[in-house]
């Protein structure tokens, strides 16, 4: 049932691609660059964030006023604020598209779980940074979010009071709270880059940028949005006041929307459960490749006597699964006799795609269940068959 659902989602994802490819040239299809788009928006966020940071004052009195100063009196300040605001939304959209696309098209299984896990961490950390971004404005909404969060944290057994103190920077809201929020916004943003290293470490040539056309379009769209719908604060936060209604950005704040019906503690449990489920997704499907209708061809094997240490497979392997080590002994073939290096396949990273075999001109790599000599035989047979039987 779950498997059927995933299969139909995969089918739908690829059908959507087909539609887009009809309108756009194939390599401009934005859905092929969801990760690159996320990285583009992240970069825009960092640049615009630094500019905003120069004006921000993390104190109870100054926070709201400094944001208003940036919005009203700094030339184009409102535009930069708007870009930061809308780029955050776009970043989240891109991340979620990236997540669902790779989920539905099976690009997280087996050897690729490392990317999936780091991606889940990136999602959580990015979402948290987005949430603390709302607090920094210190308007009514920020105040309500702060008290809801502190309440939820306090309800955690044993360490609740301590967690709330860590979050608020003291027993209650004070100047320290705002500087703590500023750190909780900027800190995770930096953590994102550490996690991105993990996200990329097993990839050769990760696609970290979208095509130029999408850079132009995304920047343009952000400028248009920031100008047409300028970002604005709510009413300033006032100690003791109960905030009235305001628009909630469910995108980042959906746990708080849930809190309308759920006790904050349960909302936290729900978020925790979702994240935990996300982390185990690559390990939930216990099907063998055969059950998934795939041919398990086995992981690439180096034919040591033929390897010349030319590094071609090492450069082409998309998952950095091939390492070149100093050759422990000379090869047998004439080309391999004087090799300096030997290719080694890291089994835990190999996805059995066979790209290294295509790269190797020396017959030094094989997929165990699709041997080169068999392929050659099929080629000869296909090329030579006499008058074909009419169908």
């Amino acid at each position, binding site marked *: 049932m779950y498997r059927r659902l995933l299969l139909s989602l995969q089918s739908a994802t690829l059908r959507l*691609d087909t539609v887009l490819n009809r309108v756009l040239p194939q390599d401009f299809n934005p859905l092929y660059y969801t990760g690159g788009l996320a990285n583009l928006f992240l970069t825009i966020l960092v640049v615009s964030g630094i500019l905003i940071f120069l004006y921000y004052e993390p104190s109870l009195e100054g926070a709201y006023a400094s944001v208003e100063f940036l919005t009203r009196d700094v030339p184009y300040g409102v535009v930069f604020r708007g870009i930061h605001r809308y780029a955050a939304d776009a970043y989240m959209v891109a991340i979620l598209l990236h997540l669902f696309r790779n989920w539905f098209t099976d690009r997280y299984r087996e050897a690729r779980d490392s990317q999936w896990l780091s991606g889940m961490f990136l999602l959580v950390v990015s979402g948290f940074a987005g949430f603390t971004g709302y607090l920094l404005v210190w308007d009514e909404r920020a105040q309500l979010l702060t008290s809801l969060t502190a309440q939820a944290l306090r309800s955690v057994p044993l360490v609740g009071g301590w967690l709330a103190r860590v979050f608020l920077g003291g027993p209650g809201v004070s100047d320290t709270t705002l500087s703590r929020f500023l750190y909780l916004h900027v800190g995770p943003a930096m953590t994102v880059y550490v996690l991105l290293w993990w996200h990329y470490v097993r990839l050769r*040539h990760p696609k970290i940028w979208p095509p130029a056309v999408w850079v132009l379009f995304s920047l343009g769209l952000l400028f248009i949005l920031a100008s047409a719908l300028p970002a604005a604060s709510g009413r300033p936060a006032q100690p003791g006041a109960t905030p009235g209604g305001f628009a909630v950005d469910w995108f980042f704040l959906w746990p708080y929307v849930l809190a309308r019906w759920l006790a904050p503690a349960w909302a936290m449990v729900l978020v925790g459960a979702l994240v935990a489920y996300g982390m185990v997704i690559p390990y939930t499907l216990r099907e063998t490749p055969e059950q998934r209708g795939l041919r398990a061809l086995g992981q690439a094997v180096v034919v040591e006597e033929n390897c010349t240490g030319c590094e071609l497979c090492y450069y082409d392997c998309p998952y950095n699964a091939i390492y070149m080590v100093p050759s422990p002994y000379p090869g047998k073939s004439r080309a391999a006799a004087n090799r300096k290096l030997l290719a080694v396949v890291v089994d835990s990273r190999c996805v059995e*795609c*066979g*790209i290294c075999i295509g790269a*190797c001109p020396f017959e030094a790599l094989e997929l165990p269940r699709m041997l080169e000599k068999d392929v*050659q035989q099929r080629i000869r047979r*296909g090329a030579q068959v006499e008058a074909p039987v009419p169908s």
Partner: protein
Amino acid sequence: MGTAPERTPQANPQGPARVVGFLCDWAVRSEGLLNADDTLVGMPHVTVIRVPCSGFVKPAWLELALRSGAAGTFVCGCPMGDCLNREGNWIMEGRIDQLRKRLSRQKVDPDRVAFFAFGLHEREAFLQAVAEFVNRLAGSGGNR
């Protein structure tokens, strides 16, 4: 030349151009696409070998196909940018570009080697591209 690819060999005593192709498992859905002997349904002169990724194909195999008597050979990968293994089709496209240059230095018509990129649901477009490729080969007298 210019005839429909479904023509039977009787229409042409020599038969249409013989072609060996490689098809990525993740590109065009292959259920019902191939006969038991690996030939394309409706195009018995086209043999298709399914591979785990278009990047699995060695350029030497394409040369082998041409040397063994095929009029042409092609590789079909996923749409550019959508390779399951991230860059198999880009790598393959690059290898084919190099192979074409090598072939033209050897006075072999480089257009006998083709690269296609079609997704799971693009069977019709794939079959049409193969048919056009076969026709082009027949037109250029590639059936040596």
